[in-house]
Every structure is written in C-alpha cells, then in structure tokens.
C-alpha cells in the first residue's frame, strides 16, 4: 500500500524554540498510525502543521500526491483531512446536529445566491444534509442528543461528537489528538473498540496522538516517537515497547 501522507523534513520554529525540526515520516493508507512522545515533543504542533493552522518554517507535507503546505486550513480539510483537538473545540452554543452539519456542508453544492432565494436545489441539498447527518449521529449513538447544545454534553460525549464531526467531512485521513485524555481505564478500553469500528466503518486512515499506552499499543499498526521535535524511533508497537531510547525518554522505567 502507498503512503497517504508524507511529512518531509518539516520544521517549525516559534521564535527561538524549535518545536519541530527536520521531521520525516509517512502514513500508509489504511493504517492506524500512532504518534507518541513526551509532553512538549511537538506532536500537536505537527497536527497543526498538517492541517494548515501553522505554516511550516521549512519542509513539505504531501497528501495523496499533493502538497499541502501553504494551503488554508479549510482547503486542507476539504482535501480529506479531518481532525479533533487536544482541548475540545466544539461549536458549544450550537446543537449537536448543527455541529455535524457544518462539517457535512462541504459536500453540499449550492451558491450563496441560491441560498438567499431558496431555490429547490438548495432544499434538496438541505434535506439530504439533515438526513445524512442524523444518520451519522445515530451510528455514533448520539442520535437522541441531536438537539442538545454541544457545550452541554458530558465530556466523554463531547469527545465522541468531535470525532463524529470530523467524520462528517468524509475524510480519508483522520487526525485524533489525545482522544482518551480524561477517560479512565475502563472507558479507554471501550474507546479503543470504538475507534476500530470507526476505522473500518468509514474507511479512514487514522493518525493519532495518545498517552494511554493500552490504546496505542492495542490499536496502532505503526508508531512514530517524537522527542524535542525530532523523530527518535519508528516501528511496530512491539519494536517501540522494547526501544531503549523510547523507554528512557517517554515510557519510564516501570510500565503502567
């Protein structure tokens, strides 16, 4: 299988701080790819670079054969990259359904003028969007909450909704930034199952950052380890688990 995403020698500096320097790796289509590394290693920064929120200081990012660096975040999203955020960023004052519809809207094709005077094409589009979005929420087990405000959901469900919203974009690649943060071990196990389901059901490649080793080791086909903005290791979960450098920098002496 071919590389869906390639990060080539990418660097990003903040003032004097090298958050990412010369980072190189690629994600194979269909894989679940994990990124781990100590706090401040540059994992989230890497996500922000891929999704266009930050521009790389140097290097290039290629997605499905096309260079992404320099594109606006919305363009990149429309190319087929969905994401969640480390600190949940839902549209809190909007309903659960609206949150999903906003992402789904990229599939709708009508012009502002059609919207202003409601031509029939818009009506059909809208009806379809409601139906598809509701179905997605149903599949995620959020159907009953369609009309609640996103900000009123309990934390765990907010995380789930964020994933649903990203899926509504119909992405080929889904970036998840610490989806299990704040979940207990029981809940994390359930999340692992859930992510497996998402991956097959929606046929997405997963790239995820996580500190819960059970999840990472259980789910990922491949793992990249970052430290100080650089890749220090890459391999299968077994290889990583045994890697001295990784243990030293990240996992610590006794495993959880």
């Amino acid at each position, binding site marked *: 299988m071919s590389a869906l995403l390639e990060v080539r020698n990418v660097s990003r500096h*903040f003032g004097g*701080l090298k958050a990412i320097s010369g980072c190189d790796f690629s994600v194979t289509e269909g894989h679940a790819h994990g990124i*781990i*590394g*100590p*706090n*401040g*290693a540059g994992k*989230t920064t890497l996500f922000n670079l891929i999704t266009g929120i930050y521009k790389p200081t140097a290097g290039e990012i290629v997605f499905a054969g096309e260079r992404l660096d320099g594109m606006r975040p919305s363009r990149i999203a429309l190319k087929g990259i969905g994401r969640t955020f*480390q600190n949940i960023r839902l549209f809190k004052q909007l309903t659960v359904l609206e949150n999903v519809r906003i992402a789904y809207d990229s599939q709708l094709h009508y012009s502002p003028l059609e919207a202003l005077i409601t031509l029939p094409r818009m009506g059909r589009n809208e009806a379809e969007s409601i139906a598809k979005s509701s179905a997605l929420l149903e599949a995620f087990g959020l159907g009953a909450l369609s009309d609640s405000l996103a900000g009123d959901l*309990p*934390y*765990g469900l907010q995380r789930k909704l964020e994933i649903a919203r990203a899926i509504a974009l119909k992405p080929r690649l889904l970036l998840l930034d*610490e989806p299990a*943060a*704040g*979940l*207990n*071990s*029981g*809940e*994390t*196990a359930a999340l692992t199952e859930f992510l497996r389901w998402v991956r097959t059901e929606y046929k997405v490649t997963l790239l995820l950052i996580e*500190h819960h*080793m*059970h999840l990472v080791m259980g789910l990922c086909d491949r793992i990249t380890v970052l430290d100080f903005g650089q890749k220090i290791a890459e391999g299968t979960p077994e290889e990583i688990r045994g890697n001295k450098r990784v243990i030293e*920098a*990240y*996992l*610590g*002496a*006794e*495993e*959880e």
Partner: protein
Amino acid sequence: MNALEVHDLTVSYGDIRAVKGISFTVKQGEIFTLIGANGAGKTSTLRALSGMLKYGGRVVYEGTEIDAIAADKRVGLGLAHVPEGRGIFGNLTVMENLKLGAWLRKDKSGVAEDLERGLTAFPRLRERKDQAAGTLSGGEQQMLAVARALMSRPKTLLLDEPSMGLAPKLVQDIYRVVREINAQGVTIVLVEQNANLALKIAHSAAVLETGSISLIGTGAELLSDPRVQAAYLGA
C-alpha cells in the same frame, strides 16, 4: 484533628444536581483520593471545597467551619487547589505564574527559596522560565500548575486530575512529586480518572457515582474491590 470534614455536601448547576449530599473525612497528612467516571461530580466537589462554587452542606477545615469564607481567603488558611484544566495564565511567563502563587506571602526570602525549589523539582520549567506559559505543552502546564500551588506553602492541596494528558513517564514524575509533598506533611485530596495509580498511593479513598459516594475505604481495599476493578481499572 482532621484536615477536612465534609458533611452532606451538595452542588447544583441550575437544575442539574451534580453532587447529591456526600460526606467524608480527610485525616491530617494523608492522601485521600476520589475516583469516579466522567461527570460523576469529582471536580464539582473540589470546587466546592476551595470555595469556587456555592454549595449546600458544611465543610470543616482544621476544626473550623469555612462555609462563609471566600475562595481567596481559604488559600490564606492553607487550602490550595490545582484546578482541572490547570488554570495557568497563558499570557504570563512561567516565572510570573510562579510568583503569583506566592501572592499572600510576605517573606521574600522564603518565597525565593520555594521558587528555587520548584524550579529544581521541575527542571523543564527552569528551561522555559521566561516563556509565555500559554505556549507550554500540556504536561509542562500541569507541572507549572502544581509548582504554582506549592508556592503558597499549603497545608492541604486539592489536586484535580494531575495526570490528565501527561506522558507515562511524566505521570510517574508527578506522582513521585505528589508523594514527596505528602511526605513533607501536606494533606492531599486527589481526584483521578487513572484509578489504578491513584489508589496505589492513596491512604484512603472514595468512589463517586453520579453525585453520590458508593464506596469508601482505604486505597488498598478499593484497589482489590471487584466492583472497582470492573468499572475503573478496565480489568
């Protein structure tokens, strides 16, 4: 004397009752941990204890009732709170955050000493001491939050999910620090999702389920309780 006695504590947000009348006691010098699922009311309980929220029931701190005392005054009594989400001031530098932690203290030399100690305990913070705290990574922020709370020389420390979002190694580091602080005589009330870790270091513990306490006991007891194992340890 007990560090904290909580009697029939209730917390509501509008119509939602997040904490439904819980009572527990924290002994001086111990680590008391509160575990429970998402949304069980753990954070709400801590917020009530530190005075961030209005609540019903009574809270007795070191023998005196503190219900009428405002949040900022409780810090003066030695009750410090590291809030969920860390609450660091992103527009201030690391150093400034730490200095603010010592707002109530007048002893300049003591403050300087504690500052030094904090930076030594968390070398990462020393590296970044003049960086805006908002640009720290999650783990760095968590360390800063703990270090900052220690600047007030608290007698009791309320910790809300200190391990959230931290790398495994750092979680071990933080827990080591928590133990050290406790060893120096600081009482600790620890709220955790990571029940496994928390129960291992706790002297006593309680399980919160949808606003009520369902189990209470020593850390070891709960760790081996089958119900806890099933629900919180993913066993």
